[in-house]
């Protein structure tokens, strides 16, 4: 078992995967509570636009992902204020627009299909030394934001009007949630890829909710599940020669199934 840790690329994979395994369900907890689960998928598709555009422009793909997802997250917030479009329709608009743009960029770009593929399904084992401090920096920033604004984030999950009458500027906090979600999705592209990062944000959360705990305890448990999913997925991928992104998500799914069974058999 220790053989896996002898490889530098696996050490980097565990380092990066661990912080993403924490922040994905940490932010995912608020998205699920606000019934924004589809937002993770929307932002991941948008991030792929940023990656594709960055590859065409030959700039750092992570910056492209972050830029695109931040811009769109703010755009989603503005469109929701219009009240003439359903929230779920807004998300669908951005998903399909992003897919359309990516397909066009792939057709006009040259020789970056392999790079784009790694961002679709993740390429945790190709993380470079230079990426580690960037991803960890973003991760720590996300954690600090959640801790600093925890009360306000919970309030907007209850009800935006209720939050507003508690002195909370629910519009700003809602935007903050979208921004940190965008950051999580962007750094998650490297770990599990754009098509799967939503799973790492949602599955550990739903699994933790099976134990009948309060919100704070559920968040803590979901981050444990996130870390276990990443480590379990990496170990399975290494020894069974499987795709890391898919292995992580399937491990997370297994945790959810076990949690569901535990709920059915013992909690209730």
């Amino acid at each position, binding site marked *: 078992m220790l053989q896996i840790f002898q490889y530098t690329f696996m050490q980097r994979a565990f380092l990066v995967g661990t912080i993403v395994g924490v922040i994905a369900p940490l932010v995912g907890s608020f998205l699920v509570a606000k019934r924004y689960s589809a937002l993770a998928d929307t932002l991941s598709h948008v991030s792929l636009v940023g990656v594709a555009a960055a590859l065409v422009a030959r700039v750092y793909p992570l910056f492209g992902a972050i830029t695109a997802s931040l811009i769109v997250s703010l755009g989603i917030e503005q469109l929701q204020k219009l009240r003439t479009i359903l929230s779920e329709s807004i998300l669908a608009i951005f998903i399909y627009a992003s897919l359309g743009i990516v397909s066009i960029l792939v057709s006009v770009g040259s020789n970056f299909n392999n790079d784009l593929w790694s961002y679709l399904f993740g390429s945790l084992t190709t993380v470079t030394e230079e990426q580690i401090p960037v991803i960890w920096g973003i991760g720590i920033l996300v954690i600090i934001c959640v801790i600093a604004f925890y*009360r306000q984030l919970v309030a907007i999950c209850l009800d935006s009007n209720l939050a507003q*009458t508690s002195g909370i500027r629910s519009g700003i906090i809602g935007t903050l949630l979208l921004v940190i979600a965008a950051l999580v999705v962007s750094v998650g592209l490297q770990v599990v890829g754009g098509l799967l990062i939503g799973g790492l944000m949602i599955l550990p959360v739903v699994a933790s909710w099976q134990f009948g705990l309060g919100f704070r305890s559920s968040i803590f448990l979901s981050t444990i599940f996130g870390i276990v999913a990443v480590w379990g997925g990496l170990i399975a991928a290494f020894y069974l020669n499987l795709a890391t992104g898919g292995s992580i998500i399937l491990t997370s799914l297994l945790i959810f199934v076990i949690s569901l069974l535990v709920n059915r058999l013992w909690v209730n």
Partner: protein
Amino acid sequence: MSSIISVKDLGYSYSSNTVLQNINFEIQAGEYIALTGPNGGGKTTLIKIILGLIPVNKLTKVNIFGKNPQDFRDWHKIGYVPQSLASTGLDFPITVSELIGNNFQTNSQTKINTAVNIALETVSLLHQKDKLVSHLSGGQRQRAFIARSLVNQPELLILDEPIAGIDAGSQSQFYNLIGNLNQLMGLTIIFVTHDLGALNRWANRIFCVNQTLVIERPDPSQKHGHQH
């Protein structure tokens, strides 16, 4: 007595539909106001305007605790339970103490625990402190949200159709609870409801909203124990 809420010449339209027009009233400290009217008559809109959740033009004179709602910052003076929030429950796991503590504006866990316990004792729900809100009955859930609105010891409590979806027995307990908050603690109450029969016993005045506002007095022969 000082006026807690003052509304003059209020009119509000949305997408060319007139929702409210010529609304004028004042609410004094310690009053119990029953706010009623047909569905779509503007009750919730009026509440949201008073709370600053719906902005109105500056020609309209709406004041809450002497301030324009858009400039109001002393939110600890107000407890608010929005329409249908308690009756439909919550979709995510949150305990009763977490729900109530979330409204208390401090980082001190000791102070939060004390305030939460006081609020829960007021609504007789202390024994459910660590239970998930989603596991409570409709009436208990409603009391949990009341406790949340009381945690900052407000001066004004606004309840928007709080009894929807609650069984008759729990409704009776709920009316008594709110009535006691008004009579024993001097809390100003605005209670939005379709069921005026029960509120005849408690309310000072009845506001009937159907685009315009008609103010009535409850039938004195149906009131008991009212001190004003």
